[in-house]
């Protein structure tokens, strides 16, 4: 029998011993120093770390109608290599998506491994495509902001861009509150990408955005937009805006701005249409401001409604001649008639009695020259020059609303102060927000008391006469008392002069005149009717007011 030499045995033993040592060493390394790396690699294969997106809050009108909401819509994607017959698939998709099949086929034939075919499909279209059962096509749910009323209320709502950021209006101003806080889910998954019930699971729940209830009334908003659109078409006006305000607390019932846009299709919108003209378009208010000048003078006991002056068709202020519209002279004229006939000379006469300092002070009290503080993104302040920059003539021109600029909202809020007895409220659009902690209601904010209740009542009476007997007669509504004032102002050009034969027509009104529930301001830029544009503005006012009166079931206070 042949025996193995001990030397060979020792060598074999040594080999095994070395191999064992190497293996043991390697094992020891992976179990100690390399442990975390191995663990990380293993965990990465099964672990998924996902951001759980918070749902953006819903925006509703004061009666609960949805104005904006976020819904997950299905987006169609394709893995072209897995599509057996790309030509047929492109043709079928073209029919269902209403698109030319050519570009779809070209995209399929490109080298891309994964591609979106179309994002945010209507549900019916998604169902129809799903029913085709084409291999290589799939759906992803993606959140999409929807506005069920299309362009109605676009100016006040704003929009959400593709990155989920709120822009303009409510969406912009309340973006942080509406968007909420994203959550996180760390979980182990199986090869089929399903969550494993056992194993690692860490979850931080998302905090959904707060729901907002607005002061906006969808019916009033729709009426305002309808009337504005109609007037814009009729007058070929370049822009316009309407504000409906509740003067008792400063809550805004409607804000319409034209041109407008569809917040669901902002890419197609003209950039200029994205500007909310009610808060971001300063203009010279013209004769609508005479009410503030006269209110200031009455409040300072400098004039009374029955006081008179001799109207010669113009006033000389600071060495400059300030004419009435069309240069017409009226002879002996009362302060009430200044409003009834909208006399520039009369307003300048009252302004001179008041003096530049008090005029500027009252403009400030009425909120001109600074933002109103409304809870909408993009508000501008308008311009009231500091007194140091005034020329002597400015006390005359400012009295009838020239040489300064205001936003439509500022003017509406100022009329609101006359309507409610003299209190200037900060306008607001969000009535309440509801989040996980419950409902938080917005309290109205009285900024200041501008004039006494007696002065405000006197002004309402004078403005009522202006509608009943004066220049704003077209604004009268059968069965209801309406107080208001028209305004026609020139448009300043960049060189400081006024543009020839182009005007801004406006009307500010309130109803019922004794105890106004609503203030409505209508502004039309560059109407075809030129000086007669105020007629269209008063028509628009009537259209909106009649809808609101009917809808709000306000009893007539007069015989029709």
């Amino acid at each position, binding site marked *: 029998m042949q025996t193995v030499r001990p030397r060979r045995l020792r060598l074999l033993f040594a080999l095994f011993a070395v191999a064992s040592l190497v293996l043991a060493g390697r094992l020891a390394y992976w179990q100690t120093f390399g442990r975390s790396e191995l663990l990380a690699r293993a965990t990465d294969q099964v672990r998924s770390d996902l951001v759980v997106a918070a749902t953006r809050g819903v925006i509703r009108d004061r009666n609960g109608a949805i104005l904006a909401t976020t819904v*997950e819509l299905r987006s169609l994607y394709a893995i072209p290599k897995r599509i057996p017959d790309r030509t047929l698939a492109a043709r079928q998709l073209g029919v269902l998506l209403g698109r030319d099949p050519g570009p779809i086929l070209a995209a399929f034939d490109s080298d891309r491994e994964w591609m979106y075919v179309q994002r945010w499909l209507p549900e019916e279209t998604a169902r129809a495509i799903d029913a085709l059962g084409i291999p290589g096509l799939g759906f992803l749910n993606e959140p999409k902001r*929807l506005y069920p009323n299309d362009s*109605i209320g676009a100016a006040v709502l704003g929009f959400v861009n593709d990155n989920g950021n709120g822009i303009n209006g409510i969406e912009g101003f309340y973006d942080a509150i509406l968007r909420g806080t994203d959550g996180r889910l760390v979980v182990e998954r199986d090869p089929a990408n399903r969550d494993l019930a056992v194993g690692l699971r860490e979850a931080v729940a998302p905090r959904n955005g707060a729901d907002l209830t607005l002061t906006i009334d969808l019916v009033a908003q729709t009426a305002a*937009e309808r009337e504005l659109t109609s007037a814009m078409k009729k007058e070929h006006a370049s822009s316009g805006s309407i504000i409906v305000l509740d003067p008792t607390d400063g809550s805004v019932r409607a804000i319409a701005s034209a041109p407008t846009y569809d917040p669901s299709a902002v890419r197609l919108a003209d950039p200029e249409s994205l500007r909310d003209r009610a808060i971001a378009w300063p203009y010279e208010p013209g004769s609508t401001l005479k009410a503030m000048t006269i209110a200031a003078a009455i409040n300072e006991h400098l004039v009374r409604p029955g006081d008179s002056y001799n109207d010669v068709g113009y006033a000389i202020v600071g060495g400059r001649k300030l004419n009435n519209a069309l240069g017409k002279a009226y002879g002996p004229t009362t302060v009430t008639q200044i409003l009834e006939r909208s006399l520039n000379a009369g307003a300048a006469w009252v302004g001179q009695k008041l003096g530049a300092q008090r005029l500027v002070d009252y403009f400030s009290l009425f909120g001109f020259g600074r933002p109103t503080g409304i809870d909408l993104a993009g508000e501008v302040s308008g311009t009231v020059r500091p007194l140091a920059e005034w020329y002597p003539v400015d006390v005359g021109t400012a009295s009838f609303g020239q040489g300064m600029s205001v936003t439509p909202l500022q003017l509406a809020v100022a009329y609101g102060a006359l309507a409610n007895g003299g209190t200037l409220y900060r306008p607001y659009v969000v009535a309440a927000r509801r989040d996980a902690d419950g409902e938080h209601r917005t309290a109205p904010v009285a900024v200041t008391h501008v004039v006494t209740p007696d002065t405000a009542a006197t002004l309402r009476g004078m403005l009522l006469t202006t509608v009943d007997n004066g220049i704003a007669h077209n604004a009268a509504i059968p*069965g209801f008392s309406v107080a208001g004032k028209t305004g026609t102002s020139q448009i300043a050009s960049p060189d400081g002069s006024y543009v020839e034969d182009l005007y801004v027509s406006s009307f500010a009104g309130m109803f019922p005149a004794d105890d106004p529930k609503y203030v409505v301001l209508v502004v039309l830029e560059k109407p075809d009717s030129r000086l007669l544009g105020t007629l269209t503005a008063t028509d628009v006012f009537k259209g909106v007011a009649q809808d609101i009166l009917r809808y709000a079931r306000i*009893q007539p206070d007069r015989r029709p």
Partner: protein
Amino acid sequence: MRTAHAQKARRTVSRAGVASPGRHAQRAVRAASWDLRIFAFAITAIVFCFALALVYVSQTTALSVAGYDAQKLAAQRDEVRRQNSLLEVQSARLDSPARIAADATRLGMVRARFVPVIPAQPLIAKR
């Protein structure tokens, strides 16, 4: 184990001079009995461990299956919620005053230019 018992028996025999065959047999039987007991205990432990492992695996599997079922239900719940949201949007679209006005116009209706309101006070006074 058996060898240890045999050595112990041999030592006992050498001390006593002569060993009793009955006692030796008894001890051998007792030792064999202990061996059997230990064997049975080991088998039982193995079977118990196996059963425990089986129960653990079956429970874990059941849990995983339940987890998959829960996921399916959660997906169904999410889909129902999504459909509900879509229906809410559709309802809001249908309720939109602008849509109603547009449909009314399409049907040939026109807006009433004046809606008469009859004040209640004179009627009440007549009664």
